[in-house]
């Protein structure tokens, strides 16, 4: 069902909630946001729980870093944390760490909700049609989004080659050393990929300064209105009870 929403509706909802989770320091609010968007992804997006858990691993590691930093080095960072929230500075270390951990998870979940709910090219079309985003920027944005799965595929190929050289099967997860060795080849690939995409677009007549037809511009429906109102209402309730 999420794919039937206009990408701009999804974008706006995600942005509002990201801002809210950044500003509200409450275990209940962060947990609520996390559960809400996980439910949306699982139920409406029909993503398997296993896949969602896998995708959340980087955010969990990121959040865990916040948690341990806050618990172990509270004395050093209390001043910096106080800048964001007096309530956090007043709470105990574990509680502060937990909030930061949950915020990373909630932020990650909202980002995944956005990424899994939209078609990049539909977003680009909507941005050009409704927000008059110049095609040059819109397609650059699109290319940037598209390079992510492409980078993943290339990283996989590089890991295949490394596994082959080492004479072992491909590891399920790369080691830190493997990740480090992939940085330069992946950057080189990203540069090459960008060049190829530019040539592909140029050869097929893409010109930023010329009018173009926009096919299949996503429209707004009653579903968008219901979805937006529901999320805003839930947000309002969350802010009241936080």
């Amino acid at each position: 069902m999420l794919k039937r929403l206009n990408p701009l509706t999804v974008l706006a909802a995600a942005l509002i909630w990201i801002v809210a989770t950044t500003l509200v320091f409450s275990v209940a609010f962060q947990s609520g946001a996390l559960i809400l968007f996980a439910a949306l992804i699982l139920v409406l997006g029909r993503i398997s729980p296993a896949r969602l858990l896998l995708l959340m691993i980087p955010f969990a590691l990121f959040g865990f870093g916040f948690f341990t930093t806050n618990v172990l080095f509270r004395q050093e960072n209390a001043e910096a944390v106080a800048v964001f929230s007096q309530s956090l500075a007043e709470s105990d270390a574990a509680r502060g760490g937990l909030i930061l951990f949950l915020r990373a998870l909630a932020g990650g979940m909202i980002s995944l909700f956005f990424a899994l709910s939209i078609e990049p090219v539909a977003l680009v079309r909507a941005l050009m049609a409704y927000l008059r985003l110049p095609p040059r920027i819109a397609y650059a944005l699109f290319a940037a989004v598209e390079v992510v799965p492409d980078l993943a595929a290339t990283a996989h190929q590089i890991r295949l080659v490394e596994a082959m050289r080492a004479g072992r099967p491909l590891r399920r997860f790369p080691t830190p050393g493997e990740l480090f060795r992939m940085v330069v080849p992946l950057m080189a690939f990203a540069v090459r990929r960008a060049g190829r995409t530019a040539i592909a677009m140029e050869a097929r007549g893409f010109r930023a300064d010329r009018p173009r037809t926009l096919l299949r511009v996503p429209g707004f429906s009653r579903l968008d209105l219901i979805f937006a109102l529901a999320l805003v209402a839930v947000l309002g309730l969350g802010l009241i009870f936080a």
Partner: protein
Amino acid sequence: MTSAPLRSPEECPIAEWAGTRVTFPFEPVPAVGPIDLKVRRGECVLLLGASGSGKSSLLLALTGLIPESVPATVAGKTRVAGRPATERRPAEWSDTVAHYFQDADQVLCGMRVEDEIAFALENRALPAAEIEARVGAAMDLLGLPESWRDRRSLSLSGGERQWVALAATLVQDADLFVADEPTAHLAPEIARRLHHILVASKGERTTLIVDHRIGEAITAVDRVVALGRGGHVLAEGEPRRFFRDHGSLLEAEGIWRPAASELDARLIDAGIVLTPPPLTIEEALGQLAASEKVTEVLGAFLAERLPPRRSSAGAVIVRLERADCAPFLGKPVLLGIDLAVRAGEVTVLLGRNGAGKSTLAASLAGLLRLKGGRREGPAGALVVQQAEAQFSQGSVREEIASMLKGTDAAGHAEKTATVLAAYGLSGLESRHPMTLSQGQKRRLAIAAIDAADRWSLVVLDEPTAGLDAAATAGLIERIEALRAKGRAVVVVTHDMDFALRVADRAVVLAEEHVAAEGPAQAILLDGALLARHGLKASAAALVRRWLDGEGPC
């Protein structure tokens, strides 16, 4: 930017290179040229040449992509429809020239399939209804499944991407269709569709094709131009006369020629002159009447295309049992596969685009974890389709050296020189691997594996794509050498003549399973079986059928 053509369209060629010379930065000699070449309207021209002879550079220079998007110096005059190429930006030429690149990723931008096909038409601001109609027509023309419309192009297999890229280029309906190795990764049935398109639009569409193995589409070609290694025109002419008159020259230069041309030369040596000179084996066999002399010539032709007698294969190196094979992070595409590869044996994996050949290849090498079943045996080496993914060093020499780490350093220089010579890469030692042509990259990727020589199983995914005739012949020799050393070799290919020449066993994949498996000759000479799975019969299979008394095809 809107000045009128210098001459009327009827008078001027659609594409013209006059003394054109392309030189890349830091390279002492031009990659191509100086070259003089014209493509007239309505013509279908085939540009042949050894890999690295600058064919792709020549095409990129036509619409100014070189030097606008790819840094290089272009000298001489290049014209499109009578106007200097530099008069318009490369994007503006898209209404005149549809450019199909060697690498499908240079055509596709990563959108959904129907968006990819519509992109060029959207850029021309055509009415939405017309775009929808033309996208549908292009998909029909190439037989693209309707269910693919919403699939993202990056989720497709290499061959499937090439298929979509072809549709995305043909939909432009430009005056000139330029195709750089359009059939390199295509399954034969799709290549056949391209052939039908070229034949159907003969005289209407102007086409310039660069390819190493164009197959039966050669019958749609009006003129063949061969480039030498220095990027100069060696010879040109009408295909039938061209291949008969210049066969020896092409062979000496390592340039591809149709199997029919080789058979024609043999027949001429035996005093049999076919009229007109044949372009396909079917044409040649159709002109022959059974006689002792003909049987002798055909027998010799067939023997040359079959592998020499070999000793039986050794012990099992790798075995898959009830294996469910899936791409990384993907769902299984093959279920319950039972397969064993043996020492001193070459196995070819065949099937339509997207049948799961590459996934099975990586699973056999032990590089992809199985979703079900089990694999026994040591990890193998894999040369992936995108050869560049294998490179991590700054020069060709270092790329080989990196694979020799852990072996006796004293012999490294000699071993590097030997393997580079064996793969026709001598003289390129200091070049950065990414600056090589596609064919040279592929050869380097295989050479590096060969040099290391530490795997009992070597898997090659589409090893002949982008290779010229000489490089393909060299590759056959290297595979024979690996076999002689007791290595198990697995090859994924669409090149049936190559498969027949190297393979001991063949495996055909279809609908998530092994559809056929057995001795290579039994599979590869079984025309009905191949046709059932969208595969093309090799030249040898057609000759064998004729010799078996089933008559001309």
